[in-house]
């Protein structure tokens, strides 16, 4: 069974815990993510506030949980957008080849010449930092990987008999591309999408940390770390440590799953 793989199992457990905690726990906590408590600012972790409170007396735990919700949503949206856009363009590019392919490949070259994070930063700075813009920016900066992976797969698959057979019975090009080729060329892109989930969380948090992504007071991993960063020096380690650890674990979980899936699919090809 798949779950015999320790990495996959660990990754799945981490993420299952994150999803479960983020969806169930907030309803058991008597505070809201934005609810301030003037009398209880910068409290260290205690039974009432298991992760302590921040400058405004907000409960860190509930903010972290809401942050997990938002980060997971962003990650999924990013991966889906990049996957859909990337595979559609990649299939097109690989199937037609020639000048079309050359142009698309040079564009992806240019996009990949920038570090993804810098590219995402530039785009959010340009579009304005709302959540949809952050998603678009990150998805855009990751789409070249999907384009290239799918294109490479299509290049080898388009020579196969069933493509020729499909043309032979009179299928138009778009049907061959998106009904016959794309589903058969999806595997590497799907693996990439799982890995992309982890990166997307890190990038979203990173952008927010730098003040270019999601803004305070929205509870989001990067925002929380940024808010708490100054407190570490004065001894209040809990305001930034807990959100940071949670982000790392989520990214770790996705990467474990992605790595594992990549190994499995690579084995199957052999």
């Amino acid at each position, binding site marked *: 069974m798949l779950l015999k793989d320790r990495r996959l199992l660990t990754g799945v457990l981490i993420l299952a815990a994150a999803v479960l905690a983020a969806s169930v726990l907030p309803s058991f906590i008597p505070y809201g993510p934005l609810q301030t408590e003037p009398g209880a600012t910068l409290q260290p972790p205690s039974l009432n506030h298991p992760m302590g409170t921040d400058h405004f007396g907000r409960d860190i735990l509930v903010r972290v949980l809401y942050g997990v919700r938002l980060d997971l949503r962003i990650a999924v949206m990013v991966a889906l957008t990049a996957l859909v856009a990337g595979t559609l363009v990649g299939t097109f590019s690989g199937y037609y*080849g*020639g000048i079309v392919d050359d142009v698309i490949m040079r564009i992806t070259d240019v996009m990949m010449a920038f570090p993804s994070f810098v590219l995402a930063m530039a785009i959010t700075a340009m579009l304005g930092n709302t959540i949809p813009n952050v998603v678009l920016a990150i998805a855009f900066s990751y789409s070249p990987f999907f384009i290239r992976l799918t294109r490479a797969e299509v290049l080898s698959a388009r020579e*196969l*008999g*069933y493509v*020729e*057979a*499909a*043309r*032979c*019975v*009179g*299928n*138009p090009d778009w*049907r061959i591309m998106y009904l*016959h080729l794309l*589903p*058969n060329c999806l595997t590497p892109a799907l693996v990439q999408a799982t890995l992309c989930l982890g990166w997307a969380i890190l990038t979203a948090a990173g952008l927010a940390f730098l003040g270019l992504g999601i803004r305070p007071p929205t509870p989001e991993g990067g925002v929380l770390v940024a808010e708490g960063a100054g407190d570490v020096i004065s001894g209040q380690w809990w305001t930034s440590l807990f959100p940071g650890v949670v982000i790392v674990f989520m990214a770790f979980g996705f990467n474990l799953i992605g790595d594992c899936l990549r190994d499995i699919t690579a084995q199957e090809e052999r």
Partner: protein
Amino acid sequence: MTGVERRLRIQGLTVSFPGQGGPVSVLDNVSFEVFGNEIVGLVGESGSGKTMTSLAVMGFLPPSGRIEQGEICFKGRNLLECSQAEMRKTRGREIAMIFQSTRSALNPLMRVGDQVARVYRIQRGLDAKEAQEKAVAALNRMGIPDAERRARAYPHQLSRGMCQRVLIAMMVACEPALLIADEPTTGLDVTIQAQIFELIKEVRQATEASILLITHDLGVVAETCERVVVMYAGQVMEMAAVEDLFARPRHPYTQRLLTSVLRVDKVIEMPQLDAGLTEDVAYSIAGCRFASRCPRVLPTCWEQTPLGAQIEADHWVTCHNYG
């Protein structure tokens, strides 16, 4: 010569590919005809241009291939002058092709019944339900037992012989006027081979299709075809009715080809085997491409390309010194 209708006429077809030191013509002045409702065998060793000829008819030449001259007339229409859209309409509805590699010729992620049904939907505009029924009926006709259940199977769940039947069902779904079968039984065992050829003959009878059967198996040709076209190094060497060709081969290449067939009913000396085609030598010389291996070579053979000569009612030979 069964029908009077000239269904496919290939005239002087020359196709070249860029090679080191200039273009290499892989088809050189290929001409032959396929009449209505007949099975024509196209034989020759690997690299002789059989498959290239069929790809040219389908409009599937690789992008680097260049058609230097000639025409491919299908029902009086030159396919080489057709637009992409016209070719798409012709493929499937008028000309269909059964490929060599069976397993990969079916989409691995689609149920085989859906793949056949799709053809009916594209070409006949049937709705999903009708198409599905037609597909099951077609699979049934192809001798697939329990077709209704098999239609729901994926290609990897079927044997290669079954896959080949599915592919044939797909290709004859729209009753094409010309069916090209490019070594349709490669990799199948002999029993299945025989069944597939029976099937192809049945298809011909049921749909009045003409069939161009590409093979290097002379036994199959003798049993299945009415006429034979023999190719060597991109040129047509000899063309005749089957009985005629097997009884009285006139071209030295055909003669050697026939002596190289092992027969169970005769004890013969080990046939004299040649090395395979060496592309550089064969494809680049002026004159007859078979000259370097020909036992009856004349000095003119090296200088002058022989022209096809009709020596009997239905027997053409491309040779300066045929026997």
